[in-house]
């Protein structure tokens, strides 16, 4: 094998060894465990309800009337309850997925009547709206499918549990199995995913035998993250398809809208650049040229100038104008693309923070570099949020955090200021739009009186 091949094998081997102790494996296992009660519960209640109807229908004397009239009514009622419960339960799953899987699915649009008005219980059209509620139906389907998925998720968790348990055999064997010689002891069962119940997969009777259990444990713990990931991947996919707001058509509409935002935004940026040049450096240079022109005229074609003081003043003004124009061009260029951003977001943010009027505490942990566009958007988000905090919050200190986790870059800007930031104000709304273009997400918490905390999540790649 050549050297590169050896290196590649080494990288893969290390990834396989480290997989069980990564945060991702831990979070996925937790998700597999946490989502299960909902899956079991939903189907359980539905099933229990159906059973209750069936038993209630059974012993009554006039059971034909029951089946004909009451049973359908109760089934209908159950369905309505299921549809009503599915949305909030779906919300819990979405929240778990966002928290543990970094799978950010936006909330489906709220329940609406046929006329597009918000539907509330008691209001006219609520019931009909429930039955026409696509997201509600899809969430119900998800929760019904969640049952088998949860079974597998539990199974994946069993890989972890049994694996870790098996690792312990050699350690307690000596403590537990110290009976006097001659005592007859039954062998101890070892559980693996291939035999989880009863007498286990195999049984060990001697201390050397515990090493077989240990070896099985090692194998299971090494495999567990991948089994979990595979099962969670299916769940992820179901969540994406069934708990999001989007049918494909909706996604297309959404993309159309964000594309329009992107196009308008880049046009606006170019217009702003032109405007800044027109009102800034260009006018300064024109004035400078005028001052020099006047100075040259005062100097005359030959001989001593009549009014040297005036010439000096004009040249001074032109000199100052040239310096101002240079400064303005530099600022403008930096505003288009700060050169330090080429070194990565960490350096760029450090430079940004150094120039802040209010002290900023910066922490960055970016192991994997985002794509250039994301770095740029992240940088300008941070710049604008910092500028906002400095301008409006009257904060004493500002915290800026940039952390990359899995495939997400999260920027957090928090301050101890007065709060009350308006998410619908032009500044924050404009920022939110720019973030939406790359399927990013912004969360604002700024109660009156403070503190303000704004989180921006960006995908690492566009």
């Amino acid at each position, binding site marked *: 094998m050549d050297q590169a091949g050896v290196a590649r094998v080494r990288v893969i081997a290390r990834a396989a060894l480290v997989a069980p102790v990564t945060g991702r494996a831990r979070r996925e296992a937790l998700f597999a465990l946490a989502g299960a009660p909902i899956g079991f519960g939903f189907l359980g209640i539905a099933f229990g309800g159906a059973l209750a109807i069936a038993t209630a229908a059974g012993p009554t004397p006039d059971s034909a009337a029951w089946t004909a009239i009451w049973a359908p009514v109760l089934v209908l009622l159950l369905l309505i309850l299921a549809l009503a419960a599915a949305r909030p339960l779906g919300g819990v799953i979405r929240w778990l997925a966002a928290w543990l899987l970094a799978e950010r699915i936006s909330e489906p649009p709220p329940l609406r009547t046929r006329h597009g008005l918000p539907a509330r219980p008691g209001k006219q059209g609520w019931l009909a709206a429930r039955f026409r509620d696509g997201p509600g139906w899809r969430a119900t389907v998800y929760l019904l499918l969640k049952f088998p998925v949860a079974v597998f998720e539990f199974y994946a968790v069993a890989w972890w549990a049994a694996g870790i348990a098996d690792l312990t055999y050699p350690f307690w064997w000596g403590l537990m199995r110290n009976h006097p010689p001659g005592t007859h002891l039954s062998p101890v069962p070892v559980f693996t995913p291939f035999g989880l119940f009863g007498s286990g997969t195999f049984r060990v009777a001697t201390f050397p035998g515990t090493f077989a259990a240990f070896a099985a444990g090692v194998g299971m713990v090494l495999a567990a993250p991948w089994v979990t990931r595979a099962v969670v991947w299916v769940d992820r996919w179901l969540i994406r398809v069934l708990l999001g707001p989007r049918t494909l058509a909706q996604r297309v509409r959404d993309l159309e809208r964000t594309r329009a935002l992107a196009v308008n935004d880049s046009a606006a940026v170019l217009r702003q650049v032109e405007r800044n040049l027109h009102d800034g450096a260009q006018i300064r240079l*024109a004035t400078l*040229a*005028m001052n020099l*022109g*006047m100075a040259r005229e005062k100097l005359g074609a030959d001989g001593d100038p009549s009014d040297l003081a005036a010439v000096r003043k004009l040249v001074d003004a032109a000199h100052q104008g040239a310096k101002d124009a240079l400064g303005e061009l530099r600022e403008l260029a930096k505003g288009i693309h700060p050169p330090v951003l080429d070194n990565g977001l960490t350096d760029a943010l450090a430079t940004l923070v150094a120039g802040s009027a209010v002290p900023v505490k910066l922490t960055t942990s970016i192991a994997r570099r985002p794509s250039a566009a994301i770095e740029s958007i992240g940088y300008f988000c941070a710049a604008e949020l910092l500028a906002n905090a400095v301008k409006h919050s009257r904060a004493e200190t500002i915290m800026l955090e940039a952390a990359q986790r899995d495939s997400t870059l999260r920027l957090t800007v928090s301050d101890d200021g007065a709060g009350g930031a308006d998410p619908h104000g032009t500044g924050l709304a404009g920022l939110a739009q720019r973030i939406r273009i790359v399927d990013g997400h912004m969360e604002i918490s700024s109660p009156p009186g403070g503190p303000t905390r704004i989180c921006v999540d960006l995908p690492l790649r566009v």
Partner: protein
Amino acid sequence: MRVVIAEDAAMMREGLTRLLTERGHEVCAAIADGEALLAAVAQHRPDVAVVDIRMPPTHTDEGLRAALELRDRYPGTGVLVFSQYIETRYASELLAGGAAGVGYLLKDRVADVAEFADALARVSAGGTALDPEVVSQLLAARQPGVAALTPREREVLTLMAEGRSNAGISSALVLSTGAVEKHVASIFGKLGLPPSENDNRRVLAVLRYLGS
């Protein structure tokens, strides 16, 4: 010369005011938007107005609109439109009502103080001052008739469009006045302008450029 200046960049406004004052002209008013310009002209009745195209509130072409209105209301007042860009369409609109007392210059031209002052004086006296940039854009557009001109004739036409007299053209191109006159006659011929008593043909030649 009595001048009104409409320019929204304070730096440029003050510079222009100083420049013109130092040359012995009277700056009656220096304002920053189109409406104030119309009011100032109504009040002071200057010989000439220097007008920036992009001014508040929309920063698009309110200066041009105001300039057109000035041409309409006060035909005796020269209008020198002054901008950082040359737009052929703006030039056509300005010249649509005739080329007398109209100028359209890039702001860069203030660097040559004397030439700028000359151009302003020309406009004030009912002449024309078009930026060489206007002319080169028009040449690039290849108006019919213009294609038939020799390079030398184009040069002459360019200077003519800038508003120069035959004497001015002859000194700029280092030609004898007679040679310039010959070129001018040839241009008139190629552009199909019949001989007439007055100098209007010069203006017409420029307008022919603009296809208006």
